[in-house]
């Protein structure tokens, strides 16, 4: 029985999860929506098949843990009855979620990504996953020896999303059986960053709260550009995965070995290095030392053009009486008064003109401080309106959990797809597919079931999820390649020690 695989997990699964996962199991209607599985007998037959597959799977786990049988296994499973998705289907419906985990979620690449090697090892097995179940219960400290067991549990529990935590020194499921609490501690995790639109609420004028529009997505684009280049050039990280968070933000996963092994102090250092805005009391937030640190200098150059378009023209942050904040940021009293008089007389002046006014009035003699100081003040303002606002606490702790790539955002139904930082400008959150749309695409697909070289076409390849999974696969392949050469080098260097 599957019990033997990992007693704790499977028992809970079979005992509690169906009621927990399905607060109001609407079984009849679920069957209705599947055109050919409407009779109970057919359903029973399907259950039998599932059971058999469980057995198969167990074998492949114990004896052939290479990736080949796993592929086969996936092939078999991705042949369930076609699911009719009506336009009225809700993305949180259990059958939609089940189909998503069964047919679309790229478990295989997720496994490789976290495992850093094709063979299952502790990097994956001791990794914490945390499930948010459909009834909003939150299950921490889940862990799985292989991708298939992970997949199986997802299909059974249908989490509305799950998060990824650190690799622990022992299996997270065994944490309570340890004699010493100190034997259970987080060892490694990707260095993560979280950029969320909430932190921009005070400077964005187009939307507020949970909603976004293409105008404010530009903030995230700017942030990704600045952070990505700093991580690559300054810290020398290569494997940075940017992920759309599903609604109004982005996450970054820095997967280099060196980044994964950082302790809290180092994580805090990187976060501090990238953090610029300080203080929450409405005063001037950006006060960098001069001359500017090379990182800030470079960021300023990247952000300059965005400031003109995104901030001045699109956001128009100082319209009407909102110019008071701009005035507050100008250090020169004389100039401030001159500007105030001017803007009070014509409050409808758009922000670009107001920004230009600063220089015009300064030239015409309303400046009592050095031009250099004014230039620096203007740079500070520019940075305040464009520089990335990180949710730094997420980055500072080794054991912080972060939502996994490719899960579905429970609020929007969109898939949390990776963003290619080289093409971040063209990324549009509004074209990111929703799960309902993807399932519809599978059904609508009319191509060959096999490619020319005889491989079966995976379900995700039939949908608009394909480019994202392809990108992710490439990313993981690069990571694995580096990881492998790293191990080889270590082995070669280690050899003289052994003899």
């Amino acid at each position, binding site marked *: 029985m599957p019990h033997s695989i990992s007693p704790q997990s499977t028992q809970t699964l079979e005992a509690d999860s169906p009621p927990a996962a399905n607060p109001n199991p609407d079984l009849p209607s679920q069957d209705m929506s599947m055109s050919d599985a409407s009779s109970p007998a057919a359903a029973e037959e399907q259950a039998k098949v599932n059971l058999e597959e469980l057995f198969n799977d167990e074998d492949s786990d114990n004896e052939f843990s290479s990736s080949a049988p796993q592929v086969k296994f996936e092939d078999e499973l991705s042949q369930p009855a076609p699911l009719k998705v009506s336009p009225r289907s809700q993305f949180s419906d259990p059958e939609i979620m089940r189909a998503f985990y069964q047919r679309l979620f790229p478990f295989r690449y997720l496994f490789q990504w976290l495992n850093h090697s094709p063979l299952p090892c502790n990097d994956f097995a001791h990794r914490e996953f945390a499930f948010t179940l459909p009834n*909003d219960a939150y299950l921490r400290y889940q862990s799985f020896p292989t991708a298939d067991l992970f997949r199986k549990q997802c299909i059974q529990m249908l989490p509305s999303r799950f998060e990824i935590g650190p690799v622990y020194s022992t299996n997270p499921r065994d944490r309570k059986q340890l004699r010493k609490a100190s034997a259970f501690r987080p060892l490694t995790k990707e260095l993560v960053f979280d950029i969320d639109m*909430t*932190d921009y*609420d*005070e400077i964005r004028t187009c939307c507020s709260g949970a909603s976004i529009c293409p105008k404010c997505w530009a903030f995230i684009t700017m942030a990704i550009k600045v952070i990505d280049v700093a991580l690559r*050039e*300054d*810290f*020398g*990280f290569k494997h940075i995965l940017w992920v759309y968070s599903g609604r109004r933000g982005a996450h970054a996963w820095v997967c280099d070995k*060196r980044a994964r092994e*950082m302790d809290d*102090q*180092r994580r*805090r*250092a*990187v*976060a*501090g*290095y990238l*953090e610029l*805005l*300080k*203080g*929450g*009391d*409405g*005063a*001037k*937030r950006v006060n*960098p*030392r001069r*001359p*500017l*640190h*090379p*990182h*800030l*200098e470079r960021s300023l150059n990247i952000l300059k053009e965005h400031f003109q378009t995104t901030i001045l023209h699109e956001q128009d942050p100082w319209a009407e009486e909102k110019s008071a904040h701009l005035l507050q940021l100008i250090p020169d009293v004389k100039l401030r008064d001159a500007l105030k008089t001017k803007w009070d007389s014509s409050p409808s002046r758009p922000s670009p003109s107001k920004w230009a006014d600063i220089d015009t009035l300064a030239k015409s003699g309303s400046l009592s401080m050095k031009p250099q100081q004014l230039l620096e003040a203007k740079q500070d303002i520019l940075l305040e309106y464009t520089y990335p*606002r990180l949710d*730094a606490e997420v980055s500072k702790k080794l054991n912080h959990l972060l939502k996994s790539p490719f899960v579905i955002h429970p609020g929007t139904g969109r898939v949390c797809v990776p963003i290619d930082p080289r093409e971040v400008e063209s990324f549009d959150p509004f074209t990111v597919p929703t799960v309902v749309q993807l399932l519809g695409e599978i059904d609508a697909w009319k191509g060959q079931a096999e490619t020319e070289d005889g491989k079966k076409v995976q379900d995700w390849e039939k949908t608009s999820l394909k480019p994202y999974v392809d990108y992710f696969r490439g990313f993981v392949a690069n990571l694995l390649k580096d990881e492998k050469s790293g191990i080889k080098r270590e082995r070669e260097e280690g050899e003289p020690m052994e003899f």
Partner: protein
Amino acid sequence: MIRSDYSRVDPKRRANLNYKKKQFATAEFQQQQYEHRLNFYELPPTAEITLEEFETWAINRLKVLSELEACTFRNKTPEETAEYMTGILNKYLPLRSNSSSKSQALQDERRKDHYSHFILRLAFSSTEVLRRRFSRLETMLFKLRWLKDDVFERKDFVKGLNLDWDEVGEEEKKEILDKLMAAGGVKKGDEMDWFKVDWERVPELVEQRKVFVRRGKAFVPQREQMSLVVVEFTKRLDNALELTSRALPRLDEDDRLAPILAHLSQSFTAPDSAYSSSDANIDGLNVITANSIDTLSTHFPLCMQNLHQNLRANSHLKHFGRLQYTLFLKGIGLSLEECIVFWRQSFKLITDDKFNKEYKYNVRHSYGDVGGDANRRGRGYTPYSCQKLLTEPLPGPGQAHGCPYRTFTSDNLVALLQRTGINDWDVLKGVKEDVGKQRYHVACNRVFEHAHKREIKRVKDDGSWSATDLDTIVHPNTYFKRSWLLKHVGEGNVGVVGGGDRMEE
């Protein structure tokens, strides 16, 4: 000295009796020569000293360390600390540079420094708390001495340490000179030398953007060398302390040293700014309910008033603000049930469902009602002290936690103070000066004394409160308690403040 032996031969000679038991290739127990003023304390002392020396040297060093700790509690700036410590160091633990004195006296004081360090290491290695404290203070002492050391001797000392770092070559330097100078704040005419290390070794310099970082290497200016050396010092000391603690149970000791060591570690108690549960019991103050917080908030210190105002203005507080405020409220005696009611009522814009799901747990966790075993047994977290508030990260956008004297710009701080009714110009000016010197809690105490001028005078005049009752406030909960008691002196049962012990912590 480590393992007991039946024959009880003088342990220093034992090695000579049987060469197989010899631990060191060369005998280390002759007098050590101290080349440098600074010392990494790598080799333990091996020569003999008298019991009296053992005790007095240790006490002298202890005196220095506790004064150093007191400086941090009083929030002194590094300059003030250095100035204050000069006299104390000269008296108890002088260390002069190579050029200044005759060689024998010099060797003697270095020997004392060396031996006293190792004696205290024995005394303070037993528990984790003591170890951490000892290592922190020793690091501070090392830093202090480093700063006062002669530049050339320092260079010599560093060379002897064999730390591996690369000098930046002339060619590379030329290529990125402007970046190096911008990052390090180096001006023309300063020392133009940098060295390259993995950035992981200088996290605090990276965090403050004080070094140029490229492809994982940090370019550290020569003058920042200190932080590198200090990190190394702490690392080695921590390791050594760990080893000492493991060796401690096997210490081959008669009853001469153990009492001295025990005594030393006991007397290593410094002014404690921790919260004590007696702060929660205030005579005459009725049971606090969620509804009485508004009235009581006039007695709150500025940090908590700020949170309260923010909460009332936005009907919301971000996580760290909630945590700080919840713990404070717990500290003044608000029960868990009332605290949940308080937050529920305060978050007006949030549905019951959202509140129960996202906020209630944290409040309960703070009270130790839920969470791991350790959390429950400790009945949750203790309320934050001023020291904690002054050292935690600064609030970000939309956050309001921390100490306003530290986090606010001086204009906004003055505006905030005026809103709470402090309009006296002299006080505000004093506050500004204190804040400028980063003496935040002096500013806070100044405000307290101003706001309770009359009451303080009264209790001083009639002698009902002793001087210790009016000591500097270093905990927000002490602020509240004292403020409340002062404002209610002479009312009913609170009038009998003569007891004195009531104010003890």
